């Protein structure tokens, strides 16, 4: 079926099998392999992208459901010669090893910082009436949908914390 996706600001007209997930549309049909497939089941976060600014698992949604949506993938966040501050922080804090979970971590963290800025509480928030602050616990809790078997977690938390601190 015909689907129009806006990805990183560019419109793509696609003719897709209706069973095609958003993740497979990116990886198999658009050559955007930055979004990773770790489970295809919404269990690992490797496929995280942003749809209209909110992070989602792109393996858990069909491409045809996103006609007209604004999708941002890791490729839209930065390029090797033009890294986002968060991408740069992941490098300097060694927030990855094999790198397979990394695009998902970065997409997730990018959206997560917005959620905090908007005042969304989490399980780790002391008082949900207060604005959440960027404690280690808050970051770890909010990033727990993104698995990393290399276990760069402490470094991921540091990368996010430093980036947020520097932009504050």
């Amino acid at each position, binding site marked *: 079926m015909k689907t129009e996706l806006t990805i990183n600001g560019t419109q793509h007209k696609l003719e897709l099998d209706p069973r095609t997930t958003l993740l497979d549309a990116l990886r198999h049909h658009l050559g955007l392999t*930055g979004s990773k497939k770790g489970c295809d089941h919404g269990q690992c976060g490797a496929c995280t992208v942003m749809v209209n600014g909110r992070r989602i698992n792109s393996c858990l949604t069909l491409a045809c459901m996103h006609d007209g949506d604004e999708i941002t993938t890791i490729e839209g966040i930065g390029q090797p010669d033009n890294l986002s501050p968060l991408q740069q922080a992941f490098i300097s804090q060694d927030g990855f090893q*094999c790198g397979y979970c990394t695009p998902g971590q970065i997409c997730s963290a990018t959206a997560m910082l917005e959620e905090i800025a908007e005042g969304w509480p989490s399980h780790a928030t002391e008082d949900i009436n207060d604005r959440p602050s960027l404690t280690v616990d808050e970051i770890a809790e909010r990033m727990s949908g993104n698995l990393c078997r290399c276990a760069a977690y402490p470094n991921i938390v540091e990368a996010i914390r430093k980036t947020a601190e520097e932009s504050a």
Partner: protein
Amino acid sequence: MTEVFKMDAPATDRRLDDMVQGLVGAPLDRPEGPLKVTGQATYANEWQVENMAHGVMVRAPGPSGRVVLSNRDDVAAMPGVLAVIQDERLLRNPAQGKANEAPVQGPHHAAYMGQLIAVVVAETFEQARHAAQSVKVTLENAEVVAVTSDTAAVEPQESKTLDQGDLETAMREAAHTVDATYTTPSHSSTPMEPHASIATWEGEDLILRGSYQMLKYNRNELADSLGIHPDRVRMLAPYVGGGFGSKLGIAPEAVAAAIAAREVGRPVSVALHRQQVYEATMRRSDTRQRIRLAADAEGRLIGLGHDALVSNLPGETFAEPVLQASHFLYAGANRKMSMDLARVHRLCCGSVRAPGEAVGVTVFESAMDELAQQIGMDPVELRRRNIPDKDPESGKPFSSRRFEDALDSGAKIFGWADRPGVKERREGEWLIGYGMASAARVNVLMESQARVTLTPQGTARVETDMTDIGTGTYAILGQIAGDMLGLPRDAVEVVLGDTSLPPAAGSGGSWGASSSGTSVYLACQAIRQQLAERLEVSENDLTLKDGRATFDNQTRGLADILQNDEIVKLGHVEAGETSEAVRQATFGAYFAEVAVHAATGETRVRRMHGTFAAGRILNAKTARSQCLGGMTFGIGMALTEELAFDPRDGHVANHNLAEYHIPVNADVPQLTVELLEERDDWANPMQAKGIGELGICGAGAAILNAIYNATGVRVRDYPATLDKVIAGM
């Protein structure tokens, strides 16, 4: 012809210490980082290959019987389907690490539930997935087979038996004894990138883009599986999304992709689904381990015993080597060890991060904690008292061993002196406890080759089929070459993961960095030698820095020295007599603070520290990350990780990431790591040892020992899930 360097004598010259570029050891960023953080690094299933078809594999629904695809023709007629393949050459299970030949093959008889017995190829992934799921598989003449160690035939492993002195008498006469049996469940490596391969035939030549750890072996395993000459096979794996042992040997999807691509006459990609990774790659064996400790009144061990039961599929020789560190970690004159292997019809057992020590040291360190408790002695002091002068069985000296320093320094950094007594500290609903454990892992040097090219432009290129599975190979090989040749890090290009390059040791057994690093070191040393000859100076008098050579009070640029020539040298290392002459291992100590909920038994790791000694550290940043990763595996082993098998058919009941619980971010505190300064002259010319697995070898015990300290509950059946903790409270 390049000479092979054999590590026959200690490398006391410590040449790297003379280099002035300042790269080796420095905490430099990974050079491939910009590609990884932007999604531009190409993993196996991401190559854009023209006209590619998709294959999805089909599983056996039981552990025994002749496999029949009863609706094969119907599936073949489904939309987009190109082939339904059940070729004789499909693998029963992956090859073991370094097998160098095909594993057991044949899809017509099921040996375990989940075995991959066919591949369905279609135009699109959606079509292939649907068709593969539509295949009806029946198992004819299935027999009742053993799927648990309790009911299986058991084979004693005679070669693993040790009987030194008289342990039974020592146990009778000792002032203090521990005789405890522990169990650890099966673990899964669970790399975040599932196994995937893209096969492309060019005439008789196969290119396989895969996710593998040890390409020189994998190429031979793949060729042997297909029945073709290895020269016809080229494998590419420049980026590997984690391995942890599960990608050591060629796996079913690679052979399936190659066969399928041949059959349909176009490139085929086969990616395992996450469930298939759990069901049909490798598991760490479940273990039952009896530990006996006999100590005198002062806490000196006079005897120790370690008897283990592990399991594997019929026909597999791998037996989880849990006794490995028990042979040398602690003193004690009377020693007894044995191992039995149960033959079970479950997925294959192979290497999962630190095979042997990961569960062997962990269990032993739990027993040591029991002994310390019984004597009423500081667990750190108990370890310190039992550090042997020399290998307690062979009598060989140790190479470098900063074990005691690691215990002391780790204790200090963590604040061990402040540890509470058992069940003594409570904060609201949380019971607080401290625990510690030793770390130990054998160190190995493996044959490895690399080619280094120095150009007149003042750049260098390092080429080897070595892999970087997150281990930091791209970083450290560039640092070694940069230091040896006096070039800034950015002037060195590192090319990896291609079997057309000189064959390396591969990433496994913690030997990758030291073995492949040594081959780069040797190639660079040969280049230095040639530069020195051109300049008519002794190599020792040559100082290389920032692309310039200084000697005899003069300085010349590389362009000037080389004119228009490149210098190309191959480095080739093999293990030699130092492997046998001394006991080589890495050591460390873990310290953990846990909070156990008084009402639910839930355990949270609040703090965890590791101090490690592993010879020269090549990159302080990537080495630390390896330790973080290992310690986190330890947290998983201690608290959550367990492959659950259905006792009726051996089915992996939790074959997904929602139910096989690897630690998530919130499960892991801000771990701290200290790397001790050390040089091991016996290990290799760089004095470096392996660090990739040391972080897991005992880590889980620190947590279980802390749970005991918090609650008085001794869990001997890993992992310490809340049901087990609460049952004892």
